[in-house]
């Protein structure tokens, strides 16, 4: 079950996309999600589609990964698309039954929405697959830095984030282990009615919480013993550097925005 989770997975590689500055990648991914909403006709969606495919191609990662990223959300996507298809009026009406209509605009809108979902998921999957979680945490820290002016605890948030990311796989392993141990003691996970299923989670959750508390205590002690006194006044080991290729990608995204604005209806 856990093994199929793609969220937060990083695939090591050495492609152009892998080597981009994580701050740049993070901001561009958000920017990309923004400009997807500029697209409003066939041509603009086609441009975005090929742009995304090109980015995926540059990352040297198999297409299968991206499709698997879409899979968990497929019901949400289908639901939204169907709502669009059956409740949009306009253009030629092919079929209608009460408030439900199947119209030309509805179908077109449905396809656009579908494209939008897929493109956004592809781009965010690309970000997480090509960026190690710790770089991502560094990037978030760097981006949040200006907020220090308003006394936002940037270092603390960044620290929590990187610790959390570091412990996701460890906690997953732990979950798997405790699940197996309880299964060996006769617990059936995911069987029986809703009430029985909820009860079967207790022998999993309590040990997980307890071990998280213990782990937090050990980690805090170990950090203090190594001289951690808070974020203020620390130097950095991993230093992010902006390089020429980062500037180039920003220019490419600028160009893409120009093309979209020019092509949109």
């Amino acid at each position: 079950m856990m093994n199929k989770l793609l969220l937060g997975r990083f695939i090591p590689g050495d492609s152009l996309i892998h080597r981009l500055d994580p701050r740049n990648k993070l901001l561009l991914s958000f920017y990309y999600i923004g400009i997807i909403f500029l697209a409003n006709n066939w041509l603009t969606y086609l441009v975005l589609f090929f742009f995304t495919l090109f980015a995926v191609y540059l990352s040297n990662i198999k297409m299968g990964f991206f499709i698997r990223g879409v899979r968990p959300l497929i019901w949400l996507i289908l639901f939204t698309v169907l709502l669009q298809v059956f409740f949009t009026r306009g253009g030629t009406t092919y079929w209608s039954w009460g408030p439900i209509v199947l119209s030309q605009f509805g179908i077109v809108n449905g396809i656009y929405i579908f494209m939008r979902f897929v493109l956004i998921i592809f781009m965010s999957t690309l970000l997480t697959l090509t960026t190690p979680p710790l770089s991502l945490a560094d990037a978030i820290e760097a981006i949040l830095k200006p907020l220090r002016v308003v006394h936002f605890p940037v270092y603390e948030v960044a620290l929590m984030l990187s610790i959390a990311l570091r412990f996701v796989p460890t906690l997953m392993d732990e979950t798997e282990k405790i699940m197996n141990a309880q299964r060996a003691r006769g617990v059936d996970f995911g069987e029986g009615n809703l009430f029985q299923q909820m009860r079967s989670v207790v022998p999993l959750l309590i040990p997980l919480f307890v071990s998280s508390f213990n782990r937090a205590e050990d980690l805090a002690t170990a950090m203090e013993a190594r001289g951690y006194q808070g974020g203020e006044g620390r130097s950095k080991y991993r230093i992010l550097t902006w390089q020429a290729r980062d500037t180039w990608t920003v220019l490419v995204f600028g160009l893409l925005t120009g093309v979209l604005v020019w092509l949109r209806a």
Partner: protein
Amino acid sequence: MDITFKDVAYTYQAGTPFESQALHDINLTIAEHSFTAIIGHTGSGKSTLVQHLNALLKPTSGTVTIGERKITPETNNKHLKPLRQKVGMVFQFPESQLFEETVAKDIAFGPMNFGMEATVAAKKAAEMLTLVGLPAELLERSPFDLSGGQMRRVAIAGVLAMAPEVLILDEPTAGLDPAGRREIMGMVERLHHEQHLTVVLITHRMEDVANYADHVVVMEQGTIAKVGRPQEVFQDVAWLQARQLGVPETTEFAARLQQRGFKFDQLPLTEAELAAALAPQLPREVVSQQHDE
């Protein structure tokens, strides 16, 4: 209840780019009432192998026969409960599986999952606590108040309470002090002898293998490298050391004595065996001198 592996292979995350093969070509029989020790380097597939013994993992190819049940890649995950009752499994650091309010409830949890009445299970819990050598007044305490060694024994009691025929222990003494280690191993030995439990033990301590096991399986990179009685397996000191496994200290010492001219029909595994083999070889005066002291 014999457990037989036939051409078993297991692959983690099969069908994904993260797949890794943990076991291949495993052919192995664990006989009823035997005490099997599984040794091998870290990551050699020991833990993966034992999780097949109670069908927590199903082979990706091949067959595991547990008593009457055949487990194949197609076996359905349902109706495995009777099997899990017969094959009790103590995981590494089992103290992390405790969760109930009291020790008594936690020990009774397993048996009650297999349909035992609450009152019978409570009695069983008290019985098991004595069996693992803890005082009865701990029954009503919270498991989280206990020391590490006590928690581990409660966890083991929870598994024993299901009255398994086969007991699997994955490094039961890891992280314990010498006294705790001896107590736990002594308890396992007692269960093996008195209740005729089949025991499967994963361990890195060759002394435990020498002292308790009657059957050793050496694993290497997901395959079985050697199977035999401890006496046979530990004869080849160089072979084991090349695999970073080592031999019991006594055997190593005996091997060094052998290089200095002592003769052994077979390298001894325990201190008693070594003493018995050395005594006739020592010059008379030395022996009598020692007696005088």
